[in-house]
């Protein structure tokens, strides 16, 4: 990696994206950013706990609201605490995050989908054990 100071030097392109742009301002972490993050996270947490107990809204909508609030708070943590940005030094981090989110969604949605389906289709298996399997309820 030595002697790679100029774009035409061999080895220059071993640098990750963003390494040049960041010289002089090494960290994007500032006190105001952390304060904003803490404020937003606190608000979203309080909202979650209030929504979970409220009787003001249609009850089946509550889990949806809780999921939305949780995703919003995870976003706040990613931006203000973990400092995921749109800057060039973060390109690879964002790509990895996108892939991670895809896998997490596949695991969660896939498990819930399959297991809910099986629970529904096999709900009365043990009551009518030797009988023929119910094809679809």
């Amino acid at each position: 990696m030595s002697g790679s100071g100029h774009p035409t030097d061999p080895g220059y392109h071993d640098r990750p994206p963003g390494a040049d742009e960041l010289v002089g301002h090494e960290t994007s972490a500032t006190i105001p950013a952390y304060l904003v993050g803490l404020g937003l996270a606190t608000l979203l947490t309080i909202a979650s706990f209030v929504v979970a107990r409220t009787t003001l809204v249609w009850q089946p909508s509550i889990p949806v609201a809780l999921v939305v609030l949780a995703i919003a708070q995870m976003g706040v943590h990613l931006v203000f605490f973990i400092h995921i940005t749109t800057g060039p030094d973060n390109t690879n981090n964002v790509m990895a995050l996108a892939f991670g989110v895809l896998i997490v969604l596949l695991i969660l949605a896939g498990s819930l989908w399959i297991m809910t389906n099986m629970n529904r289709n096999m709900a009365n298996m043990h009551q009518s054990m030797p009988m023929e399997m119910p094809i679809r309820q």
Partner: protein
Amino acid sequence: MSGAQATGNDYPLAHTADHAAAELLTKRIIVGFGFWIFLLSDIIMFSAFFAAYAVLVNQTAGGPSGRDLFHLPYVALETAFLLLSSFTCGFASIGAWKRSDLWFHTAMAATFVLGAAFLALEVHEFADMIAQGAGPTRSAFLSGFFSLVGCHGLHVTLGLLWLLTMMAQVYAKGYRPDIMRRLLCFNLFWHALDIIWVGVFTVVYLMGDWQ
């Protein structure tokens, strides 16, 4: 990666000092990326625990459900401790960038105290549930609960050990570039634990209370 980036003519790397700085930044970006990959794989592992819990949440085998066991004010206190510890952990990283020993060590100590308080509350909650006969062997729901929340608690425990290690390393070796990179990784780890806790208190406690 070729071509497009090489067209700039006013590169800051012409000077040796800038060059050295860019080398360090190169390392920092790569180390951060590598640790980020680890954190994402850890999060994927947690998603499997979450999926197992969500699938088993109604299999209480005639035992207590989440609604009978969880106390939301208690969980809110745990959440507050962990969120504040994430904040003080970020503060510690700023202190390290500013090379302020007092700032860094105070913020790290505050992070440790808040993290340990969270852990103490969780251990107390677990002990309380087991004493009520609602241990991990009682039902599939409780097995899923103790695996998921216990795995997070184990991560917090390891994080606390790492935190003490980092305080000792900074004390003994100062703010060397390699120590700063370790601090960056520790920061990412601690913040990631808080992100997972957001999932835990939403999916386990709030939804369990709602059901």
